[in-house]
Each structure stands twice: as structure tokens, then as C-alpha cells.
């Protein structure tokens, strides 16, 4: 079982690589305006490889202008040898086929998991036992719980997949692992909505994405709806709900074929130092 840290901040990456993690993931998962510069990527890559750890580059969904930026970065990474690239955009998957050394990881935005929805009540409607069971069965699976989908992605070079820490879905992850996919599990935050019309930027009065001061580097918000009994986290252009990983769940995940746990270093998880990363690693080790 490997443990990775994931961050889009160079400062946090510096801390993360000093921890007991095996790999470091760097890059923006959700916001294309947060994609690091080529220089920033080079710096991050050498920081991680100097420590003798695996480097994985994380990319978001991108529009045409940022696609060019990513292409330059992929060309650089390809020259460095075998490197993993997390893709959340079918366009980047298409581009990646040109590069022999880069290994595509299917990102969370290309893995559809109905159970990310914050309302489990969907599975508890008053519709009769069998219907309810059928709803739950669909609710907790992913779009990869279907062999032709796995085969299609494998044909395009995918062998690693990112999924979320949703305990009711763990038993269905086994199917993915059995069909040749390496599973990486994000430990704390489940993404439930992503936008290009960034909520944080609008809330803080940013004028345009190009001139955005990127307040999400240091700031995140907790959104509460008391009547709905709902607590969400707003981090940049993505909305999350949080989950609490336990040792018992970790054990179950390993049993179901998980090969990597990912610790997110960001203002919501408040995991910003090597000590906190280490404490987390110890807390989930079975």
C-alpha cells in the first residue's frame, strides 16, 4: 500500500515530500487557472525526484488556451522518463497518446460516482424493499463498474484510477481491481460540484480568471444549511463534502484492492506540515 500527498501549492509540496509518503502528486485537480507554470512544474518535479519519490502530475479539465500550456508541460515530463499524469479531461487523454513515457491515471472527474451526492436519502425512499435495494445498488457503483467502459479506457492506456473514500462503495471497488485497475483513494474530500464560474472568486470579488489573485491558495469556506442539515466545503471552484477515514475502512479498502491512499494537503483538510501527514499515515495503517 502506497501513500501519496496531493497539493497544488509548492510550499505544501515541500512539506509533503519530507513526510513518510511514497509519492507526491502536484498540480491543480479542478481549476485550469491554477495550472502551474512550466517553471513551477520543473521546480516541483526536481524537488520530488531529488527526494527519490515518485512524481505524479495532476491536471484539471481545460479549455483550448490552457490545453496548449498543458501540452508543453507534458512534453517536458515525457523527457524525464516514466511519470504518471492524472487526467480529468478526455482531450488531455487524447494528447497523452503521443507520449510514450507518460502513464495516464483516470482522475475523479472522469469517474462518475452517484454516491458523491450529499443525500443518502435517495436510497431510502418509501418505494418498497426491492426498489429501494435496486436504487442503492446503482447509487453506490461507479461508471467503471462495467467491463466495456474499463476496456475502453484500458485501450487508451489507463491502468490507474482515482476514486473517493465512500465506505458503502468499497465492495464495488473490488470489481475494478479484479479487472486490472490500480485504485487510488482520496482520503478526505469528496467533490460534489465543480464549476468554471468560480464561486470563491465571485464571492471575493475577483474580476476575471486571467487576473485572479488565487485566494484559494490560502482560503476555503465552510457552507452550512441548517434546515437541510448540510455542510459543504468550498475550495476554489469546487464544492466538497468531507469524510472521516478510519482504520477499519482502510483495512476494508485494502481487502477490496486499493493500492494507494491520497492525502490532500489544502486549507480544508488543514494538513499542511510533514508531521500532520505522518500522523495521518500512522492513523490509517492497519
Amino acid at each position, binding site marked *: 500500500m502506497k501513500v501519496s500527498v496531493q497539493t497544488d501549492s509548492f510550499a505544501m509540496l515541500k512539506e509533503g515530500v519530507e513526510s513518510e509518503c511514497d509519492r507526491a502528486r502536484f498540480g491543480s485537480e479542478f481549476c485550469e487557472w491554477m495550472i502551474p507554470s512550466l517553471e513551477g512544474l520543473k521546480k516541483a518535479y526536481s524537488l520530488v525526484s531529488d527526494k527519490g519519490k515518485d512524481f505524479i502530475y495532476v491536471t484539471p479539465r481545460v479549455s483550448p488556451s490552457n490545453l496548449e500550456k498543458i501540452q508543453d508541460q507534458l512534453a517536458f515530463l515525457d523527457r524525464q522518463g516514466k511519470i504518471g499524469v492524472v487526467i480529468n479531461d478526455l*482531450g488531455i487523454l*487524447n494528447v497523452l497518446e503521443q507520449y510514450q513515457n507518460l502513464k495516464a491515471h483516470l482522475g475523479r472527474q472522469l469517474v462518475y460516482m452517484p454516491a458523491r451526492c450529499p443525500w443518502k436519502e435517495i436510497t431510502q425512499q418509501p418505494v418498497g424493499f426491492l426498489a429501494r435495494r435496486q436504487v442503492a445498488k446503482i447509487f453506490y457503483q461507479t461508471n467503471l463498474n*462495467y467491463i466495456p467502459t474499463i476496456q475502453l479506457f484500458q485501450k487508451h492506456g489507463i491502468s490507474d484510477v482515482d476514486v473517493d473514500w465512500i465506505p458503502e462503495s468499497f465492495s464495488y471497488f473490488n470489481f475494478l481491481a479484479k479487472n486490472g485497475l490500480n485504485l487510488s483513494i482520496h482520503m478526505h474530500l469528496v467533490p460534489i460540484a465543480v464549476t468554471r*464560474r468560480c464561486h470563491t472568486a465571485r*464571492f471575493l470579488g475577483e474580476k476575471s480568471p486571467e487576473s485572479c489573485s488565487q485566494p484559494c491558495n490560502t482560503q476555503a469556506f465552510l*457552507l452550512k*444549511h441548517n434546515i437541510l442539515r448540510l455542510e459543504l466545503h468550498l475550495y476554489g471552484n469546487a464544492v466538497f463534502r468531507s469524510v472521516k477515514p478510519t482504520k477499519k475502512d482502510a483495512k476494508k479498502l485494502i481487502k477490496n484492492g486499493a493500492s494507494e491512499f491520497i492525502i490532500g494537503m489544502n486549507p480544508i483538510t488543514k494538513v499542511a506540515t510533514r508531521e500532520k501527514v505522518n500522523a495521518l499515515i500512522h492513523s490509517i495503517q492497519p
Partner: protein
Amino acid sequence: MDNNDRELTQERPIPKLLSPIRSYEGAVRVIRAGADEIYCGVISEIPSLKHFVLYRGVWCNLPTYEELGRVVKYAHDHGVKVLLTANLPFMIEAVENEIKNYIRACLDEGIDALIIGDLGVLSMVKSMSVDIPLYASTYLATLNQEAVAFLTKLGFERVILERQLTIDEIAEIVQKSQVEIEVFIHGLGGCSHIDVSCYLIHAHFPELNRVRLMIDSSFNPPCKLPFEVYDTDNDQLRSNSVPILDAQRICSICDLPMLIRTGVTGLKIEGRGNPAVFQESTTKLYRELLDLLERGQMTAYWKKVESLKRQFIPMHPYLQNLHESCCEQKRCYYSPFFHAPYKLPVSWHAWTKCQFKTLTMVKNDARSLTGVQE
């Protein structure tokens, strides 16, 4: 600007206008209003998905295959294509056979194309060896030309782009793509989030419904609701009641010349779940504007747009007081990213009036669903 627009719209053909339907009556109405193509689903016929309300409820679809058959016949008699939304965001073995049967039954009724939102569904349809054009749904979140190229390689003949692109980005994608490109132009809400990455449900189940009714007696999706906003750092309350997730866009009547210039093939109105009166009046409105552009009557087009913005439009319950509900808040489909949000959609008076009128029309809609004269 007028001259430019005239030249550029004459360079490009006028895109097709696509309208949503959920009933035979709706189909009749939108076709009469000028839709070039219509799209619909009959997903309520799939038992396993009947109670799976994550995204759209059964009311967004035609009730039976027979009704689809009637819709197809009426549409084909009027030279209009019928597209079937088989755009589930995912496919699993538990529903595979039912979806296959669903698609086969719809093909038997004579539909003209399938809109597909998942690569698993695509693989399944290909394994069925059906000879029908395949269109890539907005669920595939296509944001760039490389994604279009990828989908083209997989066999899609048309790609519906993600809603959140700018006009310049759309133009670049169209220019570099080999297949037809379609974009959304109008909706009641216009999604705040990238379609397939949003798990805040639109549909209703009893528990959530009850809570929503307690809040504002409307059926707003969760992204429209006000939230308390706290700093994660120090748990301090930043704002008491802000619809912080509400980035919805409504309309693109002003952007039609620009959209035509991009070279898109189709302009799509969203809202399969909306009443036929919305589907009809929106289609009529855009048909009228596109016809003016096709004839090169730019002055008349801008005059019409200006009047639409200023007037209280009685024929269109959802566009009343457009200036306040949309223009002032920059809720245009293709306005810059960070518009000024957090206002009530319209003034209280206009809103109440609009709600009442809508309710009456929806009731009439429901009544007329049973017996429609062709």
C-alpha cells in the same frame, strides 16, 4: 457593429434550433413554434431507474414508447428530427439489459439520433450494431478540440459542448473540429456547475422536498439556496445567507450573431423537465430572432432584443422582466465568468406575479396533456 454582424452572419449558415420536449403536446407546440430538431427521453420505461432520482426525474420524459412513436410521426411529417437522450452519466451491468431494451424500443419508433453521455453506453450501443448517428452529450464535458477529436475517433458525429465555455473558446473548438458542434443557448436556470460533475440533485425525493418546502415553497435546485458562509481558518461567519453556489445563466438572445459566427451547427434550448409553455415560447422567441438574422435584418434584430429586455413579456412567463432577472445580473449564457450574483432573480412583485402565472399555465399544461388536437 451592424455591418460586421450582417457580413458575418451571412458567411455562416444559421444553426439548427433544438428544443426539448416531454409530451406529445409539447412536441406539437415546439414544432409549430419553429424547432428544427427536438430531443426527448422515455426513461420512465426503465424500471431500475424509475426511482433513481439523482439527476432528472421521470417527469422530464415522454411517458410511453407509444407517445414517442406519435411524436416521431408528427415530427417527421413536418421535416423535424427527433433525438433520443440516452445520456445516462454512467452504465453498470445491473441496468445494461434494460437500457438495451430501451434503446431498441426507441429505435423501433423511428428516432433519428442518439445522444450519449457515457463511454460505457457508447460501447454498449456499438455492440448492438445499430445504424444511427451518435451525438456526444454535454455529460461528456467537452471543453476543448482535443476532447472533440477523441470523441470523433470513438464514432460521434456531433458533439454538444459543455455549457461553461466562452464564445471565443467555442469558435476555436469549432474551427479545429471535424464534426458538428452544438451549444446550449437558453434555460430556466442554466446550470451553475459542469453538468456531469454536479451531484447536487435536481430531482426531488420526499425528504428533500419536505425540507425545501419549508425553505421557500419553491422547487429550486440546491445550488440556488442561500448558505451560511464561514471561514475555514477561524470558523468566523462571513455571510449569513448567500446563494453562493448560484452561478446560473439564463439567456443568450444578445449573443446570437456571435454564436452564428463561431460556426456551430446547433443551438439548444435546455429544459426537458419544463412545461410545454416554456418550451414553446422560448422556441418561438429564438426562431423569430434567428429568422431576422438569416434575412440579414440586423436593425430589426437588435430592436427586438432591446424591446425584449425592457418589456414585461406576457407571452413568456419565464422571461418576464428580463432586464432585472438576467441582464442586470449578467446572467447571460455567454457573459464573462464572474458575474455579479446574489440578488433575488426579480423584484418581489414581479416574481409573485410570474409564479402565479406560471402555476396557472402549468396547470393548464397538465390538463391539456391528455387530449391534444393535431
